[in-house]
């Protein structure tokens, strides 16, 4: 029986959740499932989030290379780091440029705020609590 007075019980429960692999499962599911992400013109882009992101990234990089051919003749590692920084800047602003741009940040937010996901996690946690027989204590948690 777990009696947890010293640390945050919720945090401990979350760690337990992660340890049992539910967390990674959720993450991979979000990345691999059909994203149905839409462009600015409200066109649904087929494929999973991972695929979509890869395609978009490739197209953006190719576009950049077309503008500056020297990019491919320079050091690939440092150039890719620079381009990556360009892509990640300002909450994936580069992804949203152009007609076929996608609002990646917004999509991620929507994924996180998905009530189904919340419900799934909640249920999993409930099962976990019942399984581990965790007793909730009302003592204040003080890490000091």
């Amino acid at each position, binding site marked *: 029986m777990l009696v947890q007075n010293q640390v945050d019980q919720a945090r401990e429960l979350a760690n337990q959740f992660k340890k049992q692999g539910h967390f990674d499962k959720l993450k991979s599911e979000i990345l691999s499932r059909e994203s149905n992400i839409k462009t600015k013109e409200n066109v649904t882009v087929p494929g999973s989030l991972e695929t979509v992101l890869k395609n978009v990234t490739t197209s953006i990089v190719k576009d950049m290379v077309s503008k500056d051919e020297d990019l491919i003749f320079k050091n690939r590692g440092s150039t890719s780091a620079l381009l990556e920084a360009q892509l990640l800047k300002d909450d994936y602003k580069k992804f949203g440029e152009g007609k076929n741009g996608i609002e990646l940040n917004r999509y*991620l937010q929507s994924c*996180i705020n998905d009530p189904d996901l919340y419900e799934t996690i909640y249920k999993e946690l409930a099962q976990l609590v019942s399984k581990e027989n965790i007793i909730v204590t009302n003592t204040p948690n003080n890490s000091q």
Partner: protein
Amino acid sequence: MSGYNRRLPQHPRAGPYHSTKYSGYSYSSNNSNNSGSGDNLNCNHKSSRSNYHNSSGYRNYHVSPTQSYSRNYVHPSSRSSGFNKNYPTVSDNPSDSSHVLYHSHSSTYDHSFNSYNNNSFPRHPKGTRYSYYETRSQNMGSFQDSEPSRYQQSSRYHVDTSADLVNGISSSKSAKSQSLPTNHHADTLAEDKINIVLKYDKEYFNTKYHYMDPKTNKLVNTNDFHNWNKSKQFPINGFVNLTPDGKLAHDSNSCKSYMINPKQPSVDPREKDVNLYLNKVNRTKRKYQPALAIIGRVSYDKYSIGPPPSSEILVYPCNQSDNSNLINILDISIKNYFKKFGPISHFESYNDPNNALPLHIYLIKFTSLHEKINDSAKAAYMAVKRHENKGCNIMNCHFKVVIKKNQEQLEFIKEKFIEENTRKSKLSALKLKTNQTIVKVNSSEKKVNLPTDPRSLILNGKSVDLDLSKLSFDEKHKLFRDLSKEHNRSNKRMPFDIERIVGNKACLFISINFLGHHGITKEDLAYKLRQYKVARFIRHSTGLYIIFNDIGEAIRCINRESGKMTITSRGYRRISIIVRFTLILPVLIRSRFSGYSIDLSNNEKEKSEEKETLYKNQQDLLRAATKYILEDLKDALTIDIRKRIIGPSVFDTLNPINFPDLVAKRKLEESKNEAQKQSNIASTNANMLSTSLQDNINVSTPGQDMDIFKLYGGYLKPKDVHKRRLSHHLHSHSKRARLQLEPMEHFLNDEFNSREPTPTTYATESSIHDSEEEEEVEEVEEEEDTSSSQEDDEVMENAEDEDEDEDFKLLHNEFIGDKKESIDEIETLETMPTTPEDEVQLDGKLEREKQDLDIYNPTETDKPVPVYEDNIFDKSQITVETLQETIKDEEDLRLLKEVLEEFGVYQAANDTKNKLIEYELWKIKNSINIEEFIEETHFKLNEGIPFDQSLLWEGDSFKTHGFFKVPDRLKSCYLPHRRRIHQPLNTVSHSANIGYESLEDGSNTPVQREESLKPDSTENAITGQEIISSRENRASNRRFQQDIEAQKAAIGTESELLSLNQLNKRRKPVTFARSAIHNWGLYVLEPIAANEMIIEYVGERIRQPVSEMREKRYLKSGIGSSYLFRVDENNVIDATKKGGIARFINHCCEPSCTAKIIKVGGKKRIVIYALRDIAKNEELTYDYKFEREKDDEERLPCYCGAPSCKGFLN
């Protein structure tokens, strides 16, 4: 008797008495202390006797005149002319035979013991033997009886007429005649029991002299006695010196009378002298010695008697109780301390046998390297002597150092310390026992009164683990207030600048004054406080702050250590000092949630951690957990997207394989560029081939890409480089070709070409060369990835090598002289991929050769063509020679005859001087030849400067004109070193290469230079070793260059130091020779490219004032040349007396070099660099850059001869 013995009272500071001894009487003024009756033996006890010393070996005891008699003690062994009587003292062994003389100098009856024969006295009943001693006294001669050999008993009592004397006698009577009146009772016994036999109880004696009958105890012959001082001529007390006639010696210096006043206290006459000495009045030469002088140490040698001097010392604590730090003393500390006096052969420390604790007694034995006992003894002596007065202080402990004389001494010291320790231990044990008893009693009594208040516990330093959080705010406040009162009376606060660093934590403070005064460091305190949990030490301008995370720890520390902790001061006294701390407590602020928070400066994280998280039920818990998971999920997704998706995608996309068209395009461009480069290189090489030596000297920079001298960094501005290139193009190609001159770079490479022994091996050598070339190409391919610039360099190298081959081939063709072969070779060359410039060059060469052929080939023309060109000359000055030169053949002669006949001159000439015409002609021609020869020789000697005609004297001798100053302008035409022509300065070349033979053939200077620079010249043959290694040199240089590049890349910037290092490798061989500019000059022995380092200006580095001083001195001593080179404002390099040959470099207004100041290892050094390409044997010059002198007289004229010469150096 002319003297007297004085016995003086002991001076308080004086040691033993040293009474002045004179032969004769003893004189005593000590008469006041020996009062009383009976036996008054003065100072006959052992201790006092030992203090008396008489140089003649006897002691003088005097009884005051009031005590009847006085005695003289004489040591039996002493032999003296005085009163030598042995006397048994009280403390002496009775059996010891002694002699005694009773003498009363103040006796009325007897003063005259003139002479005594040695007779045995009657023995004392106790065994004392009395004897007579003969004494001769001249002064007392008047008291002698008529019979000179009278014997007198020594036990004779001299009866004074005074009552005192009678008392004395009566008291002495109890001694029973001859016995020593020491013990009255004993004498009485002797009288009763022993039958005294008087040996000299004879009539003869009894009738003659005053004698006390021992039996009757009466003086006999009293009636015959008479007062010798009836007239009271002599004083009753004291001495009287008489003349031999028996009269008073008043006028004699040696004879004085002394009146002794018995009541007058005796005075030490030396005291007077002491006062005089101290007042420095009438000071004698001899110094007053308060103590006996110590005899100097005598070295021990083979003649020395006794044991050798001790080389061992004993070191022991002065006072154990004072030496609190004694426990910290290590043996090694003592040993190290005494090592300075000499090498130690043995070191031993002793422990207390009772408790095995060190006694801190050390035995140190010194030795010497050569086992000389004197050295080791001296070391021991010095060790003792050094600490004789002040003692020895080692690590704040005082020790005493003594020479170890024997083992007993050591044992004695050890025992003493052991005893002391035992006593202490007993005492401490007793104390402990007592304390325990007291504690027991107290504990039983006060058990209920133990403080339980946590605040009082903290204040008393007893509570350390008190949880302050359990205290209420008011309690804390009170506690802090009390602590501040006790430990922070000055209300010290933390400085503002470190308040933020420290935070609101408790800390202890020590002022900077205290720390500075005692030299206490942070580390000292850290060590002392090592048992406490100190967070950090902060050194501040106000002092040292010792920060504690825990307030309780700080309180515990201050309670335990403040005022108790001691640290050895590093100040002057090096004593242990007590350290006091000031406690600075954190500010107490009422907390909002948890009651009270002490440490409000903690960061937000800590606050958040303190935040309460309460979950009412499971739902709350699950919601919170879900929230955490979702937050984490978002973060994890972001990281995944970034690192796993976008990153690899970008990297993969950037792969050139994904862009084949772009790659192809780039390749095409590169190939085009390469082709362009090849063409440029080829054109450059062609230009180089056609560069003349003259142009090379002035402007030797080849094409832009082929500037091998720029490999190590350029120092010349691009503007100048451009200028040189312009000048390079100004020179005609044909001229260079005609002169068969080549750029200097190729001369460097010609070494390789001259390796060719015979033309026949050309092919094989070429093949070898090609293979090497291929290797280089491979190298280039390998290094392709490094950098594009490097790649270019390699390409240039390849191109250069190719050019070398071509050059080699061309030169080869020229040398073998076979035109056909040459043409064939050219044809083969044409088949090779060469540039148009090469073709032009080759075409030009062919044309020239064809022209040469055409001169001698027969021609076939329709019209007659003049074989010889018209030689037009000045008709006004027709000479025989011009005629002879003009007339080439018979036709000309025939035409001349016709002309002369027409004018009628021909016949007349034939008639008059027909016979001598040939001779006259020869004479005229000969004189002309001679003149020409002289002129040419002069011209050559002066390097192309014609002799000034004004210096030729027509008619009379120049001596008739007397002395006059020849202007410098004219001097230059006959003095080579005054020559004003600037280019080329080739003095060495002249002296080396131009001999008389070369002058004979009439070749001019450029030709000579050209000959000397031919690749197959003997000079190159001599330096064959260098030629062989030229390629290796280039390879090593290339590698070195790469290293330099790497260094540059590592450093980031191009420093001049690197440049100096790399150029040191290419230091140029130079020599000095007479200069045309001034005295001596420096010349290069091989061609130097622009910007290359040539030599360093080496000399003594002196300061500015020294340089000024030296300059004056040099001028005084006649050294006119200045070799002082200013480095900066303060430093000058003086190469006048000590320096390198760089000092011979002359000034020139158009210099070939420049001096640069380069910092190497923090020191500025002067390095001479080439400003331009410098030919072999050319004189090196640089601009001295002297400051402009306002005074014309001080201006130094410049003889550089440059076209743009300013005329003056300054």
